[in-house]
């Protein structure tokens, strides 16, 4: 008999610290499966963000570097330029990638660094207690927008993927959503493409994942998935952006 499904080698057998219904655990596992399938575990160097996934290195069974909040793509640039044969990816949240790290994000993309970026967009700062993120939807209640996000005070949800798509050096951008089993499969296939692009030296590739945060959306796990499908993905349409 042939074994066709097993626990990924790239994922440590641990219980994660993530809340029930959170998307991080799913994406950690997808990345681990992809790293195994592409047979690149011994070449991978990941950059862990500041945010809920700050201790992602506890879960992954490959080399990982910490980065200060927002600086993941600068750190990744250094590693990849110095070790071009390694496969370097960043794993970043919306605050990390699209607020404090906007400059590092845009410039790494504009230089066309041959990197893979997994961008988790859950429209909220999870680690620090559910404050407004750059991607928070209008009207969405957070710790720092108790009456709901008001465009006249805080502007609009930032579509960083669409912004990055304008840059000549950017090769691949896709937005996916963890709103259903089908969504999870599409997420895997998009992230795999972003890794494959790096292996084939194609260049800067980013996958934006709309990911549930039931705790700070104050919803059940099921309601969170529905909200991604019915509300969030209206503001952030899924599909290939570039």
């Amino acid at each position, binding site marked *: 008999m042939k074994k066709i499904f097993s626990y990924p080698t790239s994922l440590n057998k641990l219980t994660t610290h993530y809340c029930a219904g959170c998307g991080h655990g799913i994406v950690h596992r997808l990345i681990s499966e992809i790293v195994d399938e592409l047979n690149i575990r*011994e070449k991978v160097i990941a*950059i862990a963000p500041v945010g809920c996934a700050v201790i992602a290195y506890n879960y992954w069974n490959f080399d990982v570097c910490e980065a200060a909040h927002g600086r993941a793509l*600068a750190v990744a640039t*250094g590693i990849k330029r110095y070790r071009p044969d390694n496969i370097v990816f960043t794993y970043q949240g919306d605050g990390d990638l699209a607020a404090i790290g906007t400059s590092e994000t845009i410039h790494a993309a504009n230089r066309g660094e041959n990197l893979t970026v997994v961008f988790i967009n859950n429209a909220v700062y999870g680690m620090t207690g559910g404050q407004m993120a750059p991607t928070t939807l209008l009207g969405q209640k957070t710790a720092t927008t108790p009456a709901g996000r008001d465009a006249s005070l805080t502007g609009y949800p930032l579509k960083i993927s669409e912004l990055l798509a304008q840059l000549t050096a950017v090769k691949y951008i896709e937005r996916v959503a963890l709103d259903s089993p089908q969504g999870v499969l599409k997420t895997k296939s998009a992230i795999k493409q972003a890794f494959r692009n790096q292996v084939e030296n194609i260049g800067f590739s980013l996958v934006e994942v709309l990911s549930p945060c039931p705790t700070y959306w104050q919803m059940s796990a099921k309601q969170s998935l529905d909200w991604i499908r019915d509300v969030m993905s209206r503001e952030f349409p899924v599909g290939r952006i570039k």
Partner: protein
Amino acid sequence: MTGNEAIAEGAVQAGCVFYAGYPITPQNELTAYMAKRMAEVGRIFIQSESELAAINMVLGVSAAGGRVMTSSSSPGISLKQEGISYLAGCQLPCVIVNIMRGGPGLGNIAPSQSDYFQATKGGGHGDYHSIVLAPSSVQEAFDLMFSAFELADRYRNPVIILGDGMLGQMMEPIYCTRKKRTTQNAQRTTQKKWALTGCKARSPNIIRSLFLAEGKLEEINKILQKKYKKIQVQEQSWEGLFLEDAHTVFVAYGTMARIARGLMYGLRKKGMKVGLIRPISLWPFPLKAFCNLPGVRRYIVLEMSYGQMLEDVRLAVERKKSVEFFGRAGGGIPKEEEILKKFFKKKVEL
């Protein structure tokens, strides 16, 4: 060669494989030299989008095992403090050059020594120290680059080269042979077992400064403190002149030490027993230089600041000797006459 160029050439020969920098006066010649020279030797140069990005690229290369450097001047170094704290916390080696200019704020572009506290007392958040070396000539700036990279690797710690606008811009002839060591030094990185290289035939390496488990961060801090203690014992360096018979000793570093040296020789010609202590390592501060000098009656600390190294000299002499001070900052370079006027009552003409 200018001091800026000498530092850059020294770094290349010491095996620096990656340089990232952002333009700021008065250190631009360093960045420009690296842009040209790193391409010649097939290494990596990046003009980053900010000082923050530069220091974090440095962190990445260091984590991946490469000898790496960035440079800037005072306001830019302030921006790099976040990264320096992380480098110290992660125990990552690197070299950071600060060609100091006048401050605070945007200040001006004239030479200054006002970043002494920032460089020697930590600078960023947390209990840490960078090793700080202060060259006072273009030749020494070149030579110290070798020590800087060696010390960084030996202790897995950031090393700061603290120069000033005068040293950076000044041109002096130097001995600088482009020997084989340029490539040899660049290959040293393979020995770093902790580096991120991909987990082939070993368990994964993790570079981090976050330790959430109870008691773990305290344990890490104790390891750091033990390392700093060792550096303090082993790595003090200074130049002492005429300390055997001196009654008055000037204490000065960098550009200010050149002025102090001139003064000292002038005064000695007049028969006055004057000496000089020139700290080369500012951290660890060369406490040993102040030991066993029973003949010294007064120390005169000279700085292009309003008294920063002064505090370390006071600690070194433990109030047992008189410590006097003269300093100017904000871009003013003190003249010999004004120093003489303040400290020597009899009119001395050199």
